């Protein structure tokens, strides 16, 4: 996993800047792994002219923003709304560009706009607090990852600076970097501490430093409080629902997994309906070898999510001794002790899985979903394969606790990417995808392997890029 780097260089402030703002005048450089995301230059100049890696200004606003939103940054894992459809190559979270456009790509409902904007305040780095020029940086935790999505500034704002990737080999923006949650949290804490020390030692701003430190202590206590964490992860309605379930029960463990991937704005009635389904699975007492519980996961969390998905799918195919043949998904589910249930469920769910140790797991495929891709056989098969990936990844290497997950538009980004890569590789193994030539008949290949042409095309491209 990549790490976050914050490089500070304290400067003398301009004469008009006084108080804490002046004491914390600095150059700031942000690194996501090897990529410097504060690299910028004056707009409208060639890339080779006048590029700077650090932005300059007071850091008080960033400190203030971090302290104000520490609880959200620690545990608020959900995106503010259903991700827009047809989003390939787009940002996973709302960007500064979306804010300029009043989140038009996300919603047309004014109430939902306000909700997204409030979420954005909590997750857009330095929003409404910092005078530093920064690219669009959205920070969202997904333990054990910390996601930071980088994008350029919108041209509508007539920015005088242009941020750009520093290295030719850098990933294109918008770029969702998955970093280590523990490392990012520790780095941000250290950043606040460094600024407080600067305020005290260099500027005599003891009063300000003490005030910020007190607030930061409160924020960290709140972020460690189980009730606040529950609310941060699930929103008020679902957290109230979960709080009624017995702690450490299978129903609670499975429900936390499923609800983490569904809408935070679920109504109490929707939450209850979802819980009813979970309860029926948990209540099934028939013993089973539970072969869906893989003793060891074949990947490392430091690997990219798509690589994790590929390795998991290959591992499953090796267990079946079917490295590259077309797959009967129902047979695979049977072999893994997973019962498919294709039935109507609440709109919050497209597909979901629940597994309880020593029991059969259950894969719910919502036949009432209005998603167009789920109306097609290939689309449903892909969604069910992805849900199976969620089950195997959630349960892998453990065995003591119940697991649950849902695959759909609210799915956690890294887990979702891993699951989609798993599905693509499970249905169309890389060994087959690599052998495909543009002159070959894609339609026949897709019909044989039970995958849509669109998914197959993406997979063939991704496999070629990863080679």
């Amino acid at each position, binding site marked *: 996993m990549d790490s976050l780097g914050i490089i500070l260089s304290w400067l003398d402030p*301009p004469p*008009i*800047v*006084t*108080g*804490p*703002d002046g004491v914390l005048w600095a150059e700031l450089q942000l690194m996501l792994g090897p990529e410097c995301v504060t690299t910028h230059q*004056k707009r409208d100049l060639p890339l080779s002219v006048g590029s*700077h890696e650090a*932005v*300059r*200004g007071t850091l*008080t*606003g960033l400190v*203030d923003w971090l302290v104000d939103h520490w609880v959200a940054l620690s545990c608020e894992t959900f995106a503010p709304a259903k991700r827009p459809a047809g989003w390939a190559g787009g940002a996973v979270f709302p960007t500064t560009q979306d804010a300029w456009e009043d989140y038009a790509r996300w919603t047309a409902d004014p109430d939902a706009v*306000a909700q997204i*904007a*409030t979420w954005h305040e909590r997750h857009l780095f330095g929003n*409404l*607090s910092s*005078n*530093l*020029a920064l690219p669009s940086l959205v920070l969202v935790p997904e333990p054990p990852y910390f996601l930071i999505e980088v994008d350029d*500034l919108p041209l509508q*704002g*007539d*920015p*005088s*600076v242009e941020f750009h990737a520093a290295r030719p080999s850098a990933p294109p923006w918008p770029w969702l970097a998955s970093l280590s949650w523990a490392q990012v949290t520790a780095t941000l804490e250290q950043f606040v501490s460094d600024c407080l020390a600067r305020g005290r030692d260099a500027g005599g*701003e003891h*009063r*300000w430093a*003490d*005030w*910020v430190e007190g607030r930061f202590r409160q924020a960290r206590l709140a972020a460690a409080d189980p009730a606040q964490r529950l609310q941060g992860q699930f929103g008020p309605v679902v957290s109230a629902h979960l709080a009624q379930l017995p702690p450490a029960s299978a129903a609670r463990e499975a429900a936390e997994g499923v609800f983490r991937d569904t809408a935070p704005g679920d109504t109490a009635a929707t939450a209850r309906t979802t819980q009813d389904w979970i309860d029926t699975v948990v209540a099934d007492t028939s013993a089973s070898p539970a072969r869906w519980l893989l003793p060891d996961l074949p990947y490392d969390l430091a690997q990219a999510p798509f690589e994790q998905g590929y390795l998991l799918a290959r591992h499953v195919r090796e267990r079946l001794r079917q490295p590259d043949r077309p797959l009967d998904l129902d047979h695979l589910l049977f072999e893994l002790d997973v019962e498919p249930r294709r039935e109507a469920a609440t709109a919050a769910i497209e597909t979901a899985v629940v597994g309880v140790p020593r029991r059969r797991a259950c894969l719910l495929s919502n036949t009432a979903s209005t998603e167009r891709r789920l109306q097609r056989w290939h689309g449903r098969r892909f969604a069910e394969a992805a849900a199976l990936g969620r089950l195997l990844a959630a349960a892998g290497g453990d065995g003591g606790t119940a697991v649950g997950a849902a695959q759909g538009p609210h799915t956690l980004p890294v887990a979702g990417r891993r699951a989609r890569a798993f599905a693509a590789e499970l249905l169309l193994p890389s060994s087959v995808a690599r052998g495909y030539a543009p002159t070959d008949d894609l339609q026949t290949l897709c019909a044989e392997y039970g995958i849509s042409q669109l998914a197959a095309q993406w997979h063939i491209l991704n496999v070629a890029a990863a080679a």
Partner: protein
Amino acid sequence: MEKPKRQIRCKCYHRPVRSLPAGSLRGSEDSKSRCPVWAASPEVQAALLAEAIPIPEAGLDSHGHERKLVNAVNGVYFLEVSTNEAAPAYNCYCARPPETLRAALEQKAGRALDDLTTS
């Protein structure tokens, strides 16, 4: 005792450099602003600050002054954030109003500039 008068710390790079209706990011390489040009007027700034509404949940700054204030005029909403100085002073940003104060601010936002400075 009369409360000390609030001041605005409008940074040089927040001041308008050209006549864009919605303001622009400034040319002073590392800073930004979306302030409209008319917000540079000292009368407008003084009036905006004097009758700004504190955001209750933001609390007080390190000197006990209101930490965040909001106001609106001419369709633009302003968020004023304390700079933590002994005398109350505030940075100012154009911002979406907090939901809790939206109703009160919508009325203010409907005013023309003249309504603000002559009231």
